[in-house]
């Protein structure tokens, strides 16, 4: 109860005046001179499904562990429903974690694992029984109550870990790459189940992954972390369609980076010219491969046209990735559904709005 006075300290309400559910305020973490997290600020709504996306070393897991209380922050504050969260020890935080390795206790069976959080809080035996049963029923693991963790499969462990966290009715559920140990098919199934479960329970989920397709498929909002900073955040469709930097453009799927010069509202990219709403000067754009189509089959409004030679193609089942050579220096990748033959010249087209200007300072790669 020592944190009593501190928890009275209220979060500064955001500009609209409403209290933010989970507010992360200028959180930093450094080991000596090395900054793992650099002034991260993030506001999360109640019931939101937010994904922290990033490659290893981006700081996404560190941020999750700071929220859970396993790491201390070097700077900043965290508020949950207006109360300081970062001052509480992990066992007094109303947030629970699903670990990458599941971390099921090997010396307890499934029932005891799920009952653990209730037992250490002194909940009565009868209530424990009914709540554990309900939690296990929700993840369809009721039949495995007496099994030990070593006797159930990875997907089943995953479900038990989920039930073990959810039975305590956390305000926020933290999930640290929980699906990374599963094989591809099971993974898709679990993504669907997780999403359904989250919508059903209305609990805030904070999900960490390095897999962009998983992040796009599952979240209400994706927060892309890069070198300890937030690179971009937004709804999946928006962040995919309108990357703000070349890093974001490439991390969220394949993208063509095109350089050009803007003059009088027209971007001259040498292979083609397109109308843009940008100030004069050099610019860099992202153009998704699937935005490009042969002119003959392009959708209406594909007003930017150029000619190019097909120099390579890679069949990917759902489509074919073709390399288009517009000139000696300029090659573009396009995803094309129609059959296309190599070495041919042709006319291609895309819509001007698919040419997304990127922030100018970006790391050039």
């Amino acid at each position: 109860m020592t944190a009593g006075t501190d928890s009275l300290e209220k979060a500064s309400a955001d500009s609209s005046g409403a209290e933010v559910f989970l507010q992360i305020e200028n959180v930093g973490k450094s080991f000596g001179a090395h900054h793992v997290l650099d002034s991260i600020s993030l506001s999360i709504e109640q019931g939101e499904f937010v994904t922290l996306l990033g490659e290893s070393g981006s700081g996404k897991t560190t941020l999750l562990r700071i929220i859970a209380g396993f790491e201390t922050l070097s700077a900043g504050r965290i508020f949950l429903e207006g109360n300081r969260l970062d001052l509480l020890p992990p066992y007094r935080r109303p947030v629970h974690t699903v670990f990458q390795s599941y971390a099921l206790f090997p010396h307890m069976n499934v029932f005891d694992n799920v009952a653990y959080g209730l037992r250490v809080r002194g909940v009565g035996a009868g209530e424990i029984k009914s709540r554990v049963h309900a939690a296990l029923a929700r993840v369809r693991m009721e039949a495995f109550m007496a099994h030990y963790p070593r006797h159930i499969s990875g997907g089943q462990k995953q479900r038990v870990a989920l039930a073990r966290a959810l039975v305590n009715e956390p305000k926020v559920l933290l999930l640290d790459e929980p699906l990374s140990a599963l094989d591809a098919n099971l993974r898709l199934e679990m993504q669907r189940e997780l999403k359904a479960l989250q919508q059903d329970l209305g609990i805030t989920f904070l999900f960490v992954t390095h897999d962009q397709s998983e992040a796009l498929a599952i979240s209400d909002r994706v927060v892309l972390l890069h070198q300890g900073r937030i690179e971009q955040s937004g709804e999946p469709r928006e962040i995919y369609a309108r990357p703000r930097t070349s890093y974001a453009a490439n991390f969220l799927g394949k993208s063509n980076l095109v350089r050009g010069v803007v003059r009088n509202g027209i971007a001259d990219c040498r292979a083609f010219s397109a109308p843009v709403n940008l100030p004069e000067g050099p610019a860099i754009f992202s153009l998704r491969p699937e935005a490009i189509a042969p002119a003959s089959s392009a959708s209406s409004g594909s007003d930017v046209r150029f000619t190019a030679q097909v120099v390579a193609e890679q069949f990917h089942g759902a489509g074919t990735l073709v390399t288009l050579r517009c000139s000696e220096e300029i090659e573009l990748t396009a995803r094309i559904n129609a059959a296309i033959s190599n070495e041919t010249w042709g006319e291609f087209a895309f819509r001007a709005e698919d040419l997304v200007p990127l922030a100018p300072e970006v790391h050039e790669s």
Partner: protein
Amino acid sequence: MSGSRRPVILTFFAACAYGFLYLPIVVLIVYSFNRDGVGGFPPRHLTLDWYRVLFADGSMWTAVGNSVIVAAASVVISILIGFPAAYALDRYSFPGKDAFRRLILLPLIVPGVITGISLLLLVVSGGFRLSLITVVLGHATALTAVATTEIFAGLSRLDRSYEEASADLGASGWQTLRRILLPLMRTSLLGTALLVFTLSMDEIAVTFFLIGRENTLPLEIWSRLRRGATPEMNAISTLIFFFSVAAILASQRLIAGGETSLTPSAEVAGVTQ
């Protein structure tokens, strides 16, 4: 439990535990320089006299020589027996393997007295005289168990694909042993040799029943302790202590990264195999 906070009480307790572990060793060393004999606080009149007495003590040094001979012989025998035994336990399956394992590891858990007297019965029944040879027999039997567990641990840590590659490239079993297995096991074997040597230098329980007219060092010390303590005992004990520590440190430098084979933890694990 959040990481770096060091609990004061636990740290204090750990300090006390180290105090307990090192108290006798410190007392021993300090009093080896005390002119007025063992005991008496505070120690007064520091002197090197007891070391002079010790260096002039012929029978003590004869005993040291005997112990070195016995220990060296025990190292050779226990590795010559322990290596094939560990190899068989690791690589072969054969009828009676479990009994084989239990028997060879038995001296680890059976009190030294029993190993000692049962070998004494064998020696007497065979009509042999007790001598340093029977002592070597006792040490080798008791310490083969140690050597086997240590070498077994080393073998099971080894990636077996090296041997398979060697065989694949046309080497015979003998060539693979000489050119691949032994070089790869060098660290483990050196660690085992050092452990067996030290344990043999210190062995009393088995030796007690198998000793002839010539004493090993511990038995020589033992017989003098029974007569009464003098700081000469502190002096020789101090020397043994520093010699042991120097041997460990030297061997650790020699065997880079071989810390596991120098800790008797495998021996402990062997108890319950």
